[in-house]
């Protein structure tokens, strides 16, 4: 025990989480501390560095935490005296995800994880603090306020909304390029290029690239007669070669080609021309890579002729979603794009059916309902749809209904082939219940809204989220009008919807443990759809109906709009919108991992951080429930 250790303990005592520990404990910790001096601009650790055995407390000076994305350094946080950072080794095993650099000359205390861990284990408040600070997403300004700037996150979800996703995607290119020796004759090389149907070859020596030969060279130097075809390749090759590293992005490759005015890039192991050849990128590869861009996908959908074509496009969409999530493109951007593509697929499916059946005998509208209607369908879930056709004279009614039922059956069958399962509840346009005339639908909605709970206890609220996929816009508007007319002063309807929203099972037990499935194939898994997402979706729908929010179907957007319309409760709505994104992301990741709808999350496979994120995202739900209870004064059905 020495006096300096006591001074350090004194210092730590002032700041969380150390204020939860006794002086005795702090002195013990202080004894094992290392004091480090960092010069201005000195880096303590950077992205991808192996984890240190300590975490850090700033004693004096300022440390900048930043991440580098797209060659731009983005500051995440500044740590001043008393701030802790570098918590990653506590919770994760992978390398650092950010850079810590001294903004000015700083003195920091390095506290060994091994020393501190027992105190964490014995003191839940300390653990909570560390977990919270680790899991908090500091790129979200709301959270920054909550934590008073004293917590430094180490876990970054970086989203650059302006950046186009496509530019981050990695290129796939030819990894076994044609390589020729420097002594080869032009004729031989030309023959080899023709045989392997490529327009470029790399001239190599010891597997290092020396030069490159392309069709252009052949054309400008041989075909013009400047060199005979018996000359050696080194006379006409372009040298040196423009070399790049293996994991180059589309944007970079494009820039390099433009800058160097070349059509081919040689990929080498370390990106220099003094290392092994790994492949060749041609202009064509860039074009192919761009084909995964959403605009191109939609164009292809419009041109596709069979369910098989559509299926391959839907598979590419899944890839696109997966890549975008990994590149931390914001989930709302992804779902916007995904839903446009889904919509295009549905539209094309209807078109294909019409091509088969002949033109429809009356005007109609094909509406997507449920998640697709809300534009939230990231994964291949089941299809929900309804069909509304305009009123026809009684004598034609039978034929017309017949036609549309056939249309519904055919279209849903196509969609099933693409990968969207049939709705288990039969909420599809192929069902004669949900394929009817405008008058019948008007009656249906009136019925649902004015006498809820009378005919069927189970009105599906999904009928109140719809989006036109094909047909007459006017029919959709008509339905919308019916709904909003009925909403006025309809306490009974809100009472019903409100109760429906509240009836969902709670996600957490009294002891803040996740409630998991008790029986069945999904035993011990967490039902994220019913327990976490549905209450938010239902809540958003309920409020937007009551505030007359038209044309906003998306849960995320609904909450955002509600925050504007009802500023008193803005905070709750905004929290809900964030929570919704987090939950969707978790569900999507789970779904991508298991190739299903991601409804059931296996908690054991979640990291501690993700679990904490999940738990945090469940918190706003309770506030929303209270709000529903207050606003709608639920009585009739409870």
């Amino acid at each position: 025990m020495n006096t300096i250790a006591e001074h350090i303990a004194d210092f730590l005592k002032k700041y969380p989480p150390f204020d939860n520990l006794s002086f005795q404990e702090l002195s013990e910790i202080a004894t094992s501390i290392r004091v480090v001096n960092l010069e201005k601009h000195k880096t303590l650790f950077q992205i991808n560095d192996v984890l240190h055995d300590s975490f850090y407390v700033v004693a004096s000076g300022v440390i900048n935490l930043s991440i580098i994305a797209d060659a731009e350094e983005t500051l995440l946080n500044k740590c001043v005296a008393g701030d802790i950072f570098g918590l990653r080794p506590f919770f994760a095993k992978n390398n650092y995800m950010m850079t810590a650099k001294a903004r000015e000359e700083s003195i920091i205390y390095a506290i060994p994880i091994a020393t501190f861990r027992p105190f964490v284990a014995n003191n839940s408040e300390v653990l909570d603090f560390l977990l919270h600070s680790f899991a908090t997403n500091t790129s979200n300004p709301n959270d920054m306020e909550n934590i008073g700037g004293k917590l430094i996150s180490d876990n970054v979800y970086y989203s650059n909304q302006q950046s186009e996703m496509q530019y981050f995607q990695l290129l796939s290119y030819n990894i076994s390029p044609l390589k020729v020796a420097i002594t080869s004759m032009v004729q031989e090389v030309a023959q080899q290029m023709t045989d392997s149907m490529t327009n470029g070859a790399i001239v190599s020596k010891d597997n290092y690239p020396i030069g490159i030969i392309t069709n252009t060279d052949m054309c400008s130097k041989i075909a013009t007669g400047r060199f005979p075809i018996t000359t050696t390749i080194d006379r006409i090759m372009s040298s040196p070669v423009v070399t790049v590293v293996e994991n180059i992005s589309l944007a970079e490759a494009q820039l390099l080609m433009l800058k160097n005015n070349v059509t081919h890039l040689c990929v080498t192991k370390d990106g220099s021309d003094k290392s092994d050849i790994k492949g060749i990128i041609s202009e064509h590869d860039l074009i192919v890579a761009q084909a995964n861009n959403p605009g191109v996908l939609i164009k292809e959908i419009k041109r596709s002729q069979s369910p098989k074509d559509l299926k391959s496009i839907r598979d590419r969409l899944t890839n696109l979603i997966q890549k975008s999530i990994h590149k931390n493109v914001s989930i709302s951007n992804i779902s916007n794009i995904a839903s446009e593509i889904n919509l295009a697929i549905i539209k094309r499916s209807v078109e294909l059916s019409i091509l088969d059946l002949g033109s429809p005998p009356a005007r109609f509208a094909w509406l997507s309902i449920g998640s697709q209607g809300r534009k939230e369908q990231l994964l291949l879930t089941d299809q929900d749809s309804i069909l509304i056709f305009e009123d026809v004279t009684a004598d034609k009614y039978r034929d017309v209904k017949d036609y549309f039922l056939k249309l519904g059956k055919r279209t849903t069958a196509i969609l099933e082939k693409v990968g969207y399962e049939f709705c288990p509840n039969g909420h599809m346009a192929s069902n004669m219940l949900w394929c009817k005339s405008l008058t019948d639908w008007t009656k249906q909605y009136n019925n649902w809204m004015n006498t809820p709970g009378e005919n069927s206890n189970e009105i599906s609220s999904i009928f109140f989220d719809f989006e036109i996929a094909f047909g007459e816009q006017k029919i959709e508007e008509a339905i919308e009008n019916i709904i909003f007319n009925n909403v006025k002063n309809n306490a009974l309807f809100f009472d019903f919807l409100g109760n429906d929203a509240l009836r969902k099972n709670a996600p957490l037990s009294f002891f803040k443990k996740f409630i998991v499935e008790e029986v069945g194939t999904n035993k011990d898994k967490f039902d994220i759809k019913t327990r976490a997402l549905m209450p938010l979706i239902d809540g958003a729908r309920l409020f937007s109906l009551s505030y007359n929010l038209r044309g906003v179907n998306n849960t995320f957007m609904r909450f955002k709009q509600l925050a504007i319309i009802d500023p008193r409760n803005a905070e709750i709505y905004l929290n809900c919108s964030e929570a919704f994104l987090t939950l969707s992301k978790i569900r999507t990741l789970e779904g991508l991992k298991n190739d299903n709808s991601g409804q059931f999350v296996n908690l054991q496979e979640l990291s501690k951080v993700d679990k904490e994120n999940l738990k945090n995202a469940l918190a706003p739900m309770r506030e929303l429930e209270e709000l529903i209870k207050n606003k709608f004064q639920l009585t009739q059905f409870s």
Partner: protein
Amino acid sequence: MLDWIKNIKREYPEFWKNYLSKFDKKSNRFVVLCTETTGLNPDKDVILSIGSFSVINNSILIGDSFEAYFAQYKFFHDNGNLNEFTVESKMKKLGESEGIQAFIEFIGNSILVGHHIDFDVEMINAALERLGCGRLKNEALDIDIMHRKLLDINNKQFSLEELCEIYKIPKSDRNSSSEDAYKIALLFLKLKSRLGLN
């Protein structure tokens, strides 16, 4: 005939022989130290306390430290001035011989660092002589000289306070040899990186 050599060897206490044997290897450990003394004359004055930290890999190890107060009752008695602080303080007090012995064990073959380190070394040497040992063999670095080298100043000495001022070492309201040693250690880290020593 060789008896006298044996005698010399026998004269050294065990801990000193042990200390000498450590110099076969070079050390990468620095020991920053500061002594508090009764005055400035190595022959007449004695050490009251030693504070010391080790520095390895550019960081100060708080746990690897040495802190001792020497109970110099004889000195006080002979000079008739009682240092009340030392006598009354609740700090653990060691006799000079055990104190120096423990300190020698602590430093081993490390490179010593201090402010006007020559004086500290002289004081320790004087104490060692009283124990029948030889002189310290450690290399020693002086932060004042490091500072003057950095700025190329030859005609002026800097006090510890001045150096702390220049390098913006946080001031502390407490004052002890440990406190000073800690400041010296921080100064040493800063000077070391500025001079590009590694």
